[in-house]
């Protein structure tokens, strides 16, 4: 694409958005900024869940459609642990561990026996997602489970400029999302296992040829990816709520984040999560009955101009 067209399309995108922002700030400053914060905190949750999805996909070409079920599983585990012990941090750890263990079991017992069969693995995850979702309904019921924020994060943060007050818990999600992102970056770029994972994303066969136990790397990646879904589940249990159907919602979010951001790229997941989270929240705030249309339009635009996602690279 020539420089002119890049500028042209950039303007086509930016001008209406800027016009909307100016109008919205002029119309109702408080609403605009609260929506912005809501969008960013939702993005944070989306990023945490979707980064696990993209990690697994990037390395194993395994579209884990049971990712939403793992999210729900982690959320329920966190809920019950928090109820039993009263410690939110324990709930986070339990959610992560529960989902990671299930993910590990899936990898060790099923996926390692069908290497390279992307489509079949994906179908297996569909079957598993149906079964896990139904087992959760069977065991826990279809009622709404709402977890409350821990005491030190309960209540609003007061005396803020413009928006006056905002939920402490939601505010805390912003640094948490950034922290998870930084930790993931450090893990992938500064540790030996991370190096192996990155090498595996680029060329699995070559990685195996250098003597690395690829199955081990796969198992670790799958556990971390699934664990991130469970971790997100505990966060979502407070921010949203746990009810059958949320698994599909988070799966859709992960899919779109990863498609928009670029598949297999953790940074891309961050970009995609911010785009999706803010678009969805602004849609809900300003055009409630068409909000999902914005999501869809973003998906179409990205696929039309960058089929591999914003930060995607050829597989």
């Amino acid at each position, binding site marked *: 694409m020539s420089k002119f067209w890049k500028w042209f399309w950039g303007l086509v995108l930016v001008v209406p958005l800027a016009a909307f922002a100016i109008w919205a700030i002029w119309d109702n400053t408080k609403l605009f900024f609260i929506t912005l914060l809501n969008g960013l905190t939702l993005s944070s949750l989306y990023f945490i869940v979707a980064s696990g999805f993209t990690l697994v996909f990037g390395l194993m*070409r395994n*579209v884990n*459609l049971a990712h939403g079920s793992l999210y729900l599983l982690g959320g329920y585990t966190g809920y019950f642990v928090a109820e039993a012990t009263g410690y939110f941090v324990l709930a986070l750890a339990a959610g992560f561990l529960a989902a990671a263990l299930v993910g590990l079991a899936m990898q060790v017992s*099923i996926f390692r026996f069908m290497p390279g*069969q*992307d*489509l*079949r693995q*994906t*179908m*297996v995850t*569909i*079957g*598993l997602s*149906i*079964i896990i*979702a*139904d*087992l959760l*309904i*069977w065991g826990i019921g279809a009622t709404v489970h709402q977890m409350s924020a821990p005491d030190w994060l309960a209540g609003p943060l007061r005396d803020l400029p413009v928006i006056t007050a905002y939920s402490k818990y939601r505010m805390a999600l912003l640094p948490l999302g950034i922290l998870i992102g930084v930790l993931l970056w450090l893990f992938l770029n500064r540790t030996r296992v991370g190096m192996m994972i990155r090498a595996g994303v680029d060329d699995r066969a070559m990685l195996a040829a250098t003597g690395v136990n690829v199955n081990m790397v796969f198992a670790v990646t799958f556990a971390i990816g699934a664990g991130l879904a469970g971790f997100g589940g505990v966060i979502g249990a407070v921010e949203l709520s746990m009810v059958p159907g949320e698994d*599909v919602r988070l*799966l*859709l979010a992960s*899919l*779109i984040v*990863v*498609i928009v951001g670029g*598949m297999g790229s953790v940074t891309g997941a961050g970009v995609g999560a911010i785009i999706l989270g803010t678009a969805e929240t602004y849609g809900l705030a300003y055009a*409630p*009955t*068409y*909000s*999902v*249309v914005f*999501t*869809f339009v973003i*998906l*179409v635009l990205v*696929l*039309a101009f960058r*089929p*591999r996602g914003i930060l995607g690279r050829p597989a």
Partner: protein
Amino acid sequence: MSTAAWRNAINAGAGRLAMGKVVVAPLQEAKPRAIQNPVRLHHVVVLAALLVFPWVASPFVTFQIGAQSLALGLIALSLTFLGGYGGMISLAQMTVAGIAGYMVGIFGTSGTAEISLGWPWWLGVALALAIATLAGAFIGWLSVRTEGIYTIMITLAVGVAFYYLCLQNYSVFNVFQGFQQVHPPKLFGINWRDPLPFYHLVLFWSLAGYFFVKYLLRAPFGIALQGIRDNPRRMNALGFHVTAHRVAAYAVAGFIAAVGGVLLVWYNGLITPNSAGTSWLINILIIAVLGGMRHPMGPFIGAIVFVLLQTFAIDLIDRERFNLVIGGVFLAIVLFSPDGLLGLWAALQARFTRRSGFSTPIGGIR
């Protein structure tokens, strides 16, 4: 050499060629005999059974099991066509069917008089088919931009997005209520909603779809599509426009799904967001995989098994646990017989006839 003879020669050659390779062409092409003598005993038996069935079975069975399986089978057939022969597993086929169903409700008559336009049924159905086919082609255009495993993600995302749109939108899709009382028209003095006429209506369109797909697979378009499935780069080098072929395949599949969707909305008498919800998107995949994606017969077999399970799982176990049963069956099929029930049948046949040098083919999903 006439065109037909030439085509047969090509097909026979394609069948022989495919036998030697790991990627095996669909069953009927592996057996040139079927082409020379198209009508065989089991065809007659199946057709007779389909025609006799409604006169023997109770109206409940005719309608609930017969008509429903055929309508679902028709939608799953569109996925088999795309997935088994085009190598593109689209989860959005039920979305296309749902769009057709919604359009019938919007353009025709329904219980929601404020939204329904009340146009004549033929106009409504024609518009529904056209719009759904366009939507199918559009989804195809979106998803063929990326390849293989990405297709399943993009089509799932599109399908779920449509579900949420229907759920949120008042003015066109009437939120969670959707459209009630969407019935087939009364024509020639027959109430097409009665079990017997409706069964025959669905049977007619299912057979039409089945033979249309069978014909298409032998036509140059179908052959090229299978070539693209097996090796897109080579087909590209041969001068085929791979993307255009794929989008065209999506349009064809979209049309088949749309016909199935219109029949399904008439069968249910209503359409709601859940009709095109995630579980139904996946159910269509389950039906197609259950039957086997290597023959156009597969989706219908899968649909019969699915509907029987759905109807009678209540007697076997708790009604609420149907998803567990169907999920388990699906998992077992994917794990142990990727070619579905047809593949299982072929494997059994191969075992008993003990044909040497012919290992069980692993086509279809891989």
